[in-house]
C-alpha cells in the first residue's frame, strides 16, 4: 500500500461489494437496526490496533449484497474521544481501502434535535447518505406528526421512516440505500447547514441552533403525557433513598433469577458431558490415551461449557435492563457511592457483569471513557465473585454447615460481600497510591423508558457467548490438558506405595488384597475400586502435581493447607472449578463422589490427614474459602487484561496483588479461627 494505513484483520471487500457505514447516537436503536438488516450474518472483530469493537455484517439488496459496518454509538464527530476519531476515520476511508459507499445515519425520531447534531456533521462530509428515522411508531403514538419531506429538504438527503424493532420501513430503506449509492452524488449541502462550520464562534452552538430550528420546523404537535411517564418513574427510581432500595431489589431479583433459571441447563450440560465421557470411555481401550481424551479433553471442555448458562442468562438480563433504559439510572444512583472509592458510576454495569464472568466484564469497561477510571475498574473486577467460584463456595459451605441451610446461605452471601468489599477497598487504595485522581464527573444521557427488545438481547447474548467460548474456552482447554498430564505423570509403580502411604493405610491395603484373593466377582469389583482409589490418591502424590503440592507445604502450612489441598489450589490457578474434582481424587474419594455434593462432603468431612488431624477442620475450611474468594485463578483473565490495557505490566500487577491479598487474608482467617474454635 502506498500509504501507511492500519490494516484490517479481515480482508476488505472488493470493489463490487458496496460498504455501508452505520452511524448514530447511542440509544437510537442502531444495533436493533443492524440486526434487522443483517440477521445472523454478522461477526465481531476489533479495529486494528485498538480495543474498539467492530461489528460487520452482510445485508441483502435487490441486486447482490452489501457489507455494513456498525460504528460505535456517538454523539458527535468532533474527535474528542477515541470512538469519535475512529468513526470519522472510517467515514473518510482510512480503515478500508476506500470510503464507504454510503453512510446510513440512524436518528431517534423521539429525540430529533439531539440526533440532528451528528446527522448534520455526517452530511457535511459529503458522502452519499441516507437517514433512517427510527422509532417513528413511538412518535406517532405520542400524537406527533413528522413532516418527512421537509426534513429531507433541510438535510438534502433521503429520509426513510422505520421502526427497527418491528421491521417496518426496512424494504424502503434498502431501496433508498441502493438508489443513493447508484446516483452520481449528494449534491450541495443545504445552505443553513453549511453555514454552521463557517461560523466563527463555537461551531457546536451554530449546529445546535440549526438542529433545534429544523426540529421546530419539522415536528408538529405536543408530546402526549406518556413522555413524562419517564419523568414520573424517574422521580422514584432516582430518589436518593428509594432509588437505592429499588436498585437493591432489582439486583437481588436479577441474581436470584439467574441461579434459579441456570440450574436446569447446567444440569443438562453436566449430564451430557458425563454421558459423552461414558460413551467414549466404553469404546476406547483402557490406558493413558483414554484417560487423556475422557478426563483431559472432554472434562476440560465440559468445565467451560457448564458456565455458559449462567453467563448467558446474566447477559440476557443485563441487555434487557439496558434496553429499557434503567441501567443509566442505576449508574446515576450508584455514582455518588462509587466515586468515594474512585470509581465512576459508569463502571457499575461492567462490575455487575463480572458476577457471571470477569472476561466479558473487562471488555465491557470500554464504556468508561476516562483512562484512569477504566484501569482501576479492570484491576479490581476479578475480585468480584464469578460463576466459577460457586462450586468451591458450595463445597466449603457444605463442609462447614451441612444440615444448617440458613447458616450455609449466610456464608455464601458473606463470600459475595467479601469479594465486592475487597473490590471497593482496593479501588480506594489504588486511588490513594498508584493511580491517584478523581473519577471523571458523571455525565450520561438518560434515555426514555421503553419496552426492551428480546430479539436484540438474544443476538447480543449469542455474540457474547461465542466470545467467551473463544477467549476462555481455548485457554482453559489447553490448561486442562496440561494439568491432566501433570497429575498423571510420573506414574507411581505399585511397589512404591509403601514409600508414601502411612502404616495404617498399608495395613488397610494388605487387608483388602487378602480379601480380594478369595472374594466372589461382585465383591471383587468393589474391593478393586477401593484399592484403586487409595492407589490413585498416592499416585497423585507421586505425580508432578503432587510433588509441587508437597514442595509448597511450608508456604501454605500457615493457612492450614496440607499437600493435598495444595494440589487442588495449584491446579485451580488454571481453572477455579477444578478444585472440587481434584480434591475428590486426591482424597481418594469415590470416583463418582465428585458429582454428588452431599456424598463428597460426607467423604471429605471424614477424611484425616497423614498425621491424624481432620483434613477439613473449620479453620482450614474458612481459610480455603477466603483464599478462593480473593485469589486470581483464571489465566484467561490475564490475557484479556493485557489486551485491554495494552501491556503485560498491569496484568502481572493484577495477579500479583491479588495473590498477596488472598494469601494474607487466608492466613489471618486461619490463625484467628484456630484461636477461636
Amino acid at each position, binding site marked *: 500500500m502506498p500509504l501507511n494505513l492500519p490494516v484490517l484483520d479481515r480482508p476488505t471487500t472488493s470493489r463490487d461489494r458496496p460498504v455501508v457505514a452505520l452511524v448514530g447516537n447511542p440509544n437510537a436503536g442502531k444495533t436493533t437496526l443492524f440486526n434487522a438488516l443483517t440477521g445472523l450474518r454478522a461477526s465481531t472483530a476489533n479495529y486494528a490496533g485498538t480495543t474498539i469493537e467492530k461489528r460487520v455484517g452482510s445485508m441483502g439488496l435487490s441486486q447482490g449484497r452489501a457489507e455494513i459496518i456498525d460504528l460505535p454509538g456517538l454523539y458527535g464527530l468532533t474527535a474528542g474521544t477515541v470512538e469519535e476519531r475512529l468513526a470519522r476515520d472510517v467515514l473518510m476511508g482510512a480503515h478500508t481501502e476506500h470510503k464507504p459507499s454510503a453512510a446510513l445515519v440512524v436518528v431517534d425520531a423521539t429525540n430529533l434535535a439531539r440526533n440532528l447534531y451528528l446527522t448534520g456533521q455526517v452530511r457535511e462530509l459529503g458522502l452519499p447518505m441516507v437517514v433512517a428515522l427510527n422509532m417513528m411508531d413511538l412518535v406517532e403514538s405520542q400524537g406527533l406528526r413528522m413532516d418527512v419531506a421537509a426534513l429531507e429538504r433541510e438535510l438534502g438527503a433521503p429520509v426513510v421512516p422505520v421502526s427497527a424493532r418491528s421491521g417496518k420501513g426496512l424494504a424502503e430503506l434498502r431501496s433508498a440505500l441502493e438508489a443513493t449509492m447508484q446516483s452520481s452524488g449528494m449534491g450541495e449541502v443545504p445552505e443553513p447547514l453549511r453555514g454552521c462550520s463557517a461560523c466563527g464562534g463555537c461551531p457546536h452552538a451554530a449546529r445546535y441552533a440549526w438542529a433545534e430550528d429544523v426540529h421546530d420546523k419539522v415536528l408538529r404537535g*405536543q408530546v402526549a403525557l406518556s413522555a413524562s411517564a419517564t*419523568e414520573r418513574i*424517574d422521580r422514584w427510581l432516582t430518589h436518593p433513598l428509594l432509588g437505592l432500595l429499588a436498585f437493591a431489589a432489582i439486583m437481588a431479583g436479577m441474581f436470584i433469577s439467574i441461579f434459579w433459571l441456570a440450574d436446569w441447563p447446567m444440569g443438562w450440560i453436566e449430564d451430557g458431558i458425563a454421558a459423552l465421557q461414558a460413551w467414549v470411555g466404553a469404546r476406547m481401550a483402557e490406558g493413558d490415551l483414554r484417560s487423556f481424551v475422557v478426563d483431559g479433553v472432554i472434562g476440560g471442555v465440559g468445565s467451560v461449557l457448564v458456565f455458559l448458562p449462567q453467563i448467558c442468562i446474566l447477559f440476557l438480563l443485563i441487555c434487557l435492563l439496558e434496553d429499557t433504559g434503567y441501567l443509566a439510572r442505576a449508574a446515576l444512583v450508584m455514582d455518588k457511592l462509587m466515586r468515594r472509592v474512585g470509581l465512576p458510576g459508569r463502571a457499575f454495569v461492567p462490575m455487575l457483569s463480572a458476577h457471571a464472568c470477569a472476561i466479558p466484564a473487562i471488555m465491557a469497561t470500554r464504556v468508561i471513557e476516562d483512562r484512569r477510571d477504566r484501569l482501576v475498574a479492570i484491576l479490581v473486577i476479578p475480585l468480584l465473585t464469578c460463576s466459577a467460584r460457586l462450586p468451591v463456595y458450595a463445597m466449603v459451605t457444605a463442609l462447614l454447615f451441612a444440615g444448617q441451610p440458613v447458616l450455609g446461605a449466610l456464608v455464601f452471601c458473606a463470600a459475595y460481600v467479601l469479594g465486592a468489599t475487597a473490590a471497593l477497598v482496593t479501588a480506594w487504595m489504588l486511588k490513594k497510591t498508584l493511580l491517584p485522581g478523581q473519577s*471523571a464527573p*458523571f455525565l450520561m444521557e*438518560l434515555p426514555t423508558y421503553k419496552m426492551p427488545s428480546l430479539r436484540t438481547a438474544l443476538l447480543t447474548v449469542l455474540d457474547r457467548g461465542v466470545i467467551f467460548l473463544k477467549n476462555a474456552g481455548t485457554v482453559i482447554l489447553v490448561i486442562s490438558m496440561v494439568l491432566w498430564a501433570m497429575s498423571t505423570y510420573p506414574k507411581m509403580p505399585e511397589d512404591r506405595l509403601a514409600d508414601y502411604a502411612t502404616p495404617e493405610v498399608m495395613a488397610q491395603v494388605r487387608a483388602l488384597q487378602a480379601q480380594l484373593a478369595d472374594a466372589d466377582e461382585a465383591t471383587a469389583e468393589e474391593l478393586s475400586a477401593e484399592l484403586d482409589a487409595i492407589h490413585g490418591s498416592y499416585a497423585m502424590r507421586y505425580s508432578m502435581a503432587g510433588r509441587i503440592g508437597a514442595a509448597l507445604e511450608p508456604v501454605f502450612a500457615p493457612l492450614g493447607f496440607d499437600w493435598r489441598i495444595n494440589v487442588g489450589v495449584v491446579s485451580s490457578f488454571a481453572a477455579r472449578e477444578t478444585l472440587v474434582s481434584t480434591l475428590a481424587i486426591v482424597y481418594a474419594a469415590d470416583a463418582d463422589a465428585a458429582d454428588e455434593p452431599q456424598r463428597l462432603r460426607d467423604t471429605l468431612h471424614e477424611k484425616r490427614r497423614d498425621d491424624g488431624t481432620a483434613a477439613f477442620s473449620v479453620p482450614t475450611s474458612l481459610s480455603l474459602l477466603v483464599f478462593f474468594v480473593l485469589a486470581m485463578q483464571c489465566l484467561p483473565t490475564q490475557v484479556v487484561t493485557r489486551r485491554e490495557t495494552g501491556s503485560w505490566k498491569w496484568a502481572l500487577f493484577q495477579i500479583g496483588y491479588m495473590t498477596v491479598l488472598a494469601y494474607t487474608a487466608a492466613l489471618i482467617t486461619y490463625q484467628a479461627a484456630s484461636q477461636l474454635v
Partner: protein
Amino acid sequence: MSSSATTLNVVQPSPDTFSLDTLASGHCAIVCEIDASNGDLQRLQVMGVCVGRRIAVVKRGDPMIVRVLGARLGLSLELARQVRVTPVDRKPCCQSHA
C-alpha cells in the same frame, strides 16, 4: 470570592448569571458560559450543553437531571457548578417537545 484564577484570562462570572446547580427544579435557563477544563468542556458540548442552548432542571440532587435539546441528561454537581446560565420565564421555553 472569585473562582480560582489559574487560566490566563480571568473571567468574572457575569453578575446576572447563576451556576446551573443553583437552579430550582422545573426552571428553565439559557446557557451563557462554561468554565470547564478542556476535556470536560468537550464532553458537555457534545451532549448539548453549549452556549445559547435552553436547559431545564428536571430534578435536583447529585447527580442532577436536566433537559437539553429534548433529551434527559444526568450530570454531577461538580460539572453543573461550571455551567453559568441566565434564567428565563417558564412559559415560552422548554415545552415538553423542545
